[in-house]
């Protein structure tokens, strides 16, 4: 591997900065596509493949990376302002972001989300750049058994997220897992619970589920008010100023440690192929709540509940590129598309890449770092003016949400069926919201269902049906212990806090 030095990084930084004319348009495009459900960075890179194939390899890399990184930040914008995550990775963002927007603190919430995204993304990119050889080892140690425990971490969050009623949270999450297991099985391709629809043989498509559970159900609910804002929120929005954005920045800078460790959670989970931003953001959210002094405020507009998922899902961005560059194993969908483009340009992955073509090997991370640096300049204007969305009358907003998100659910597979499916999920989401079942819990289940089944089957088949394989690895067992501690810790901390309160009042 190339001798790593400060001078080399400095030269690479200024070299990459020279591509600002590619980074800025790609960044703006990424912010837009990230904010629209159904238009992920992966889809957009696929659409623009002819463009990236035609570019010089370095230019293509910079373009894809800038688009990828900014789309993560863009996905948080509708999640906060209208309760519709742009991608599944931002599904935990509205839990505290939307209540803030409703209370007229949308500007503050956006500023916090942007700071968490840029700072978290920048920090993890720098760490990935320096610690790449060691981070790549994580992917080598994560086999099926370890992945099952990581998935179970995700599932344990279901009950925690819906902590006001754990039973309802578990029912919603397990219902999601069952829905996520619709389609053919991974070995013999036996169709399961497809209601005879060929369109469901590949499983439940994620975008219609996301659109239905969040966007459509929200649109049918918001029509009850003139706008999504509460009375206090309206008063605050009547007097907009830069102060709210600056306050949001100040609040997030004050929580720099929170941003740091949540983005590190994202980085480590991102390195694990298949885990992804959705799991990372929920794991970070749950960890943040577990160690919070005010866990009862999570879900009501808690600043740390917003910072945690945004820092984590941006930490994932650099994490997914680590196994791609070091062992040629993409950590996610967008990384997989980048692999195709880079292979088209004749780039060979592996340790030799960093010696032979450091401008690509290290350059991909430097491009991400430069993108995050440039994104800092968008924080103030974006948070100041995008908040205006919240004052739009729901009589205009609801039809726009319904029509554009339904068409968004059509885009990935181009099946009219997917729009009807999104409406079906919309009805489910509406009932769930009205009866206090968490739609995010159903969504986590749908995301994790097929993944869990895949790893479960792989582990069992390799062990010839022996279930004790689940406890056969040292790392796996360590993760099992960590899982139990994670589930038990909130109860222990609650107990300790109650005891301290009793002692203080006595």
């Amino acid at each position, binding site marked *: 591997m190339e001798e790593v030095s400060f001078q080399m990084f400095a030269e690479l930084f200024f070299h990459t900065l020279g591509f600002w004319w590619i980074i800025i348009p790609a960044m703006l495009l990424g912010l837009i596509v990230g904010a629209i459900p159904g238009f992920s960075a992966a889809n957009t890179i696929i659409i623009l493949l002819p463009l990236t194939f035609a570019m010089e390899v370095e230019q293509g890399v910079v373009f894809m990376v800038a688009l990828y990184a900014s789309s993560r930040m863009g996905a948080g914008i509708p999640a906060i302002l209208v309760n519709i995550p742009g991608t599944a990775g931002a599904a935990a963002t509205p839990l505290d972001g939307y209540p803030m927007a409703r209370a007229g603190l949308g500007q503050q919430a956006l500023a916090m989300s942007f700071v968490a995204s840029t700072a978290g993304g920048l920090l993890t990119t720098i760490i990935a750049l320096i610690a790449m050889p060691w981070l790549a080892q994580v992917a080598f140690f994560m086999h099926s058994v370890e992945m099952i425990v990581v998935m179970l971490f995700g599932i344990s969050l279901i009950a925690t997220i819906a902590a006001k009623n754990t*039973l309802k949270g578990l*029912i919603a999450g397990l219902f999601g897992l*069952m829905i996520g297991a619709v389609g053919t099985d991974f070995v013999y391709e036996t169709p399961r619970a497809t209601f005879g629809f060929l369109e469901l043989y590949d499983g439940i498509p994620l975008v219609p589920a996301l659109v239905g559970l969040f966007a459509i159900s929200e649109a*049918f609910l918001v029509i009850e008010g003139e706008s999504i804002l509460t009375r206090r929120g309206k008063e605050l929005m009547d007097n907009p100023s830069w102060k709210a954005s600056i306050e949001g920045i100040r609040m997030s800078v004050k929580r720099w440690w929170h941003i740091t460790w949540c983005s590190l959670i994202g980085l480590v989970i991102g390195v694990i192929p298949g885990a992804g931003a959705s799991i990372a953001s929920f794991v970070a959210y749950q960890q943040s709540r577990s160690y919070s002094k005010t866990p009862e405020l999570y879900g009501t507009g808690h600043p740390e509940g917003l910072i945690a998922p945004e820092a984590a899902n941006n930490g994932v961005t650099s994490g997914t590129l680590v196994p791609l560059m070091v062992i040629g194993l993409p950590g996610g969908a967008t990384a997989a598309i980048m692999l195709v483009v880079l292979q088209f340009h004749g780039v060979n992955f592996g340790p030799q890449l960093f010696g032979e073509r450091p401008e690509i090997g290290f350059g991909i991370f430097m491009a991400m770092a430069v993108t995050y640096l440039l994104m800092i300049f968008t924080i103030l204007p974006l948070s100041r003016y995008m908040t205006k969305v919240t004052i739009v009358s729901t009589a205009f907003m*609801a039809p726009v949400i319904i029509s554009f998100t339904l068409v968004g659910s059509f885009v990935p597979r181009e099946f009219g069926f997917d729009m009807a499916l999104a409406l079906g999920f919309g009805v489910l989401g509406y009932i769930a919201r009205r*009866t206090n079942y968490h739609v995010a819990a159903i969504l986590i289940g749908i995301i994790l269902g097929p993944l869990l089944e895949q790893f479960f*089957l792989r582990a069992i088949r390799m062990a010839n049906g022996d279930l004790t394989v689940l406890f056969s690895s040292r790392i796996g067992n360590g993760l099992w212990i960590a899982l139990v501690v994670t589930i038990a810790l909130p109860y222990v901390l609650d107990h300790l806090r109650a005891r301290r309160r009793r002692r203080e009042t006595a």
Partner: protein
Amino acid sequence: MQDDTEASQPRKRALGAELVIPVAALAFTIYYFYTILEAPWTAQASAFFIGTILIILSLVFIGLTFRWVAKGEGDWSFHTLFEPHEYVKLRLALFALTVGYIAVISFLGFTITTFLFLVLAMLLLNRGRRAKLCLSLSAILSVGGYLLFVVAFDTNFPEGPFEILMNGIL
């Protein structure tokens, strides 16, 4: 006086509505099991494991519901799903328009269907007022959407007469 007392009392939980999700989960799981009864074990293992837990939890919730009703904490009503009552008709009409949008879009294409849906839905939600604004906004959004997504991003949206005509022109 009696009315005042009733109004000040907290409303009972609409447990009929709260049962919709567990009952749906139960029905879906049973249907799922039915489809995998004769499937190889690889198709069954994970589903039986998760499904069994889901059935147990749903039955626990149903059992608890009977207890809550017996204790007077709730009733079998569905009122939370339909409140506030003055919005029921509006919501149903919007739902019907959405069903129409999905049904028609494959024939009329994105631009025309979106325009029609936006005009009708905006007029509906504005209760017939601000017609000019509804019309102009719908036109701008549907044509703007076409230009942004189809022309600029080259996205494959459902095609209809407008898109076919524009393909010929552009």
